């Protein structure tokens, strides 16, 4: 296992950034976010970023193509896929798992080439958790926050950073970094994880009953009752991947871009003659059933949630997947 002195973390960042673009979680106007590293940029002390790491593969807005229109003719210039290698440092285990979930959607044929290119060019360095928040429940989704995965796993212990390559890409990066020491990480005491209030959530029940049982639960009415229909849960969620494709007309060019969309929005499924999810109840149900039932149905039981707890912290009315899952489970017995 490679190791580095944490007091010289900046030097390691500099060494990585000297080879590839590096993103680290840093505080930006009081809010931790993955930020392009530049000398002097310090890592956040917060457990995790406000927005998730999905931004780096699936940015909120992405140009797809530009169209030039003249008279009756149209010409298309596709946007360039990103070509540059980059490194993301400090991804937590939950966010790292979210990449698997995103992969299952975006890399399914026909693959999304923009996402695909970003994934291919990125080296993910994960960071093990030692001080979880009360909202963390990744462990109940089978994630080990102390074995975070990615191309390289990292641990911070006793003033040192320990790095372990998990993939050839990770190995290549570590190999390219000189001056890394060798060492074995000391055993850490994970007892705090046993105290997590949400550690015993059970999501398996959603695969055990027919889809329609969940869909027709009378609880949706009261659960969704105070939902504001905003998109904050969706946009901070590392696994939400719904998008919209829109055109922007300006400067004589029509730009087609894709941007994050939220199934919580009233216009999400709006068509010329109406919508099949006319009230917030249907939209709310869609979001949670998608994570708890639909996605697992289509992806070998993989729950569309990684237990990062962001939605627990960010929802304006504190309604979230934990409350929904618990209520549905209770309601079904």
């Amino acid at each position, binding site marked *: 296992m490679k190791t580095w002195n944490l007091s010289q973390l900046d030097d390691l960042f500099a060494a990585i950034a000297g080879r590839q673009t590096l993103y680290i979680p840093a505080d*930006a*106007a*009081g*809010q931790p*976010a993955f930020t392009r590293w530049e000398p002097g940029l310090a890592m956040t002390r917060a*457990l995790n970023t*406000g*927005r998730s790491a999905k931004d780096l593969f699936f940015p*909120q*807005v992405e140009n797809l193509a530009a169209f030039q229109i003249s008279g009756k003719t149209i010409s298309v210039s596709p946007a360039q896929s990103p070509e540059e290698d980059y490194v993301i440092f400090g991804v937590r285990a939950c966010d790292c798992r979210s990449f698997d979930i995103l992969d299952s959607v975006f890399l399914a044929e026909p693959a999304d080439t923009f996402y695909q290119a970003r994934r291919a060019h990125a080296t993910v360095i994960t960071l093990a958790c030692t*001080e*979880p*928040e*009360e909202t963390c429940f990744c462990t109940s989704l089978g994630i080990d926050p102390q074995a975070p995965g990615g191309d390289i796993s990292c641990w911070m212990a006793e003033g040192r950073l320990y790095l372990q390559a998990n993939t050839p890409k990770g190995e290549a990066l570590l190999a390219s970094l000189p001056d890394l020491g060798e060492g074995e990480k000391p055993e850490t005491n994970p007892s*705090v994880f046993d*105290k*997590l*209030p*949400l550690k015993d959530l059970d999501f398996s029940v959603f695969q055990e009953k027919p889809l329609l049982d969940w869909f027709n639960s009378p609880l949706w009415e*009261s659960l969704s*009752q*105070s939902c*504001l*229909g*905003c*998109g*904050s849960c*969706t*946009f*901070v969620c590392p696994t939400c991947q719904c998008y*919209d494709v*829109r055109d*922007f007309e300006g400067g004589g060019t029509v730009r087609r*871009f894709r*941007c*994050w*969309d*939220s199934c919580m*929005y*009233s*216009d999400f499924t709006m068509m010329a003659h109406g919508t099949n999810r006319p009230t917030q109840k249907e939209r709310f149900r869609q979001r949670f059933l998608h994570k708890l039932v639909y996605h697992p149905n289509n992806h070998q039981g993989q729950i569309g949630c990684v237990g990062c707890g962001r939605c*627990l*912290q*960010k929802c*304006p*009315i*504190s*309604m*979230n997947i*934990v*409350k929904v899952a*618990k209520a549905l489970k209770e309601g079904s017995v």
Partner: protein
Amino acid sequence: MQRSVIETAASLLETGVCTRVLGWKTGEFFYDVTPAVFTSAEEVRKDMVFTPFCGANLSKYLIAESRKEGKIAVFLKPCDTFSFVQLQKEHRICRENVYAVGVQCPGMSDPDALKALGLKGLTGCVQEGDTLRVDTLYGEKAVPLADALSLRCRGCKSKRLHDCDAIIGTQGKDLQTSRFAQVEALEAMTAEERFAFWRKELSKCIRCNACRNVCPACSCETCVFDNPDSGVQNKAAASSFEENLFHIIRAFHVAGRCTDCGECTRVCPQHIPLHLLNRKLIKDMNTLYGVYQAGADFETKPPMLAFTLEDPEASIITQGRNGQ
């Protein structure tokens, strides 16, 4: 306080004064309170809470709830009553279907405020006088209540409860607080500094619309930013311009209607101090057109829908005040 709120709610249902109660429902933790409609005293006693973490302003829910069958009781903090009156002023609430219970408010706390103090893993909380004893995964911490107060409550404008059918606690007064201090601090900066400040803040915006959807003044049937026919529909934080446009136009649309309840800042997942934009406009309107508080009464014409012949010209802005 919590007890009287719950008992009042339960008895309103039991005595048939109302068929539903709009209040706050307990969650997984001590702070994750959800607005909810209760239909039985049993539910109320089981799940209803009133704690310093019941920040959510319930007045906006009345737009839909007051149009439903039967009477609904609602619990409103002083701040919320301003929104309640303002919404009535805009004909958005059927007052006859509402039984408004004013709850005096000690100032609301915020888990984010606790976390800003360096607390992690919040699992429990007990109030003891002016102190909060907070249980965390990493041990118990004592925090002065004032330090846990949410940002908006630190410049509380009024403890007065407006247009309530009943009051729990005592009727309060308007307060003189320096709620414009941060606005003034920004005004004192150079334009470059202000631009840098806002760029940094607004570039965090993810256009989740939480600020808009929670805002009692943003009660439009369809927001212009959602209306494909408006010509400005957009849902993406697609460029720095779109963030500016959204927040400028939103501030402008609620100008004279915003009661300064601060919900926008409370719900912002990105912690953008959005209330400053509204406060700036409130401050300007107060200075230029006379003091006006939205939702303080039913009669006064809001400044954006009124004028005087002597209003200052826009040049006081474009040419700079104080000879700047």
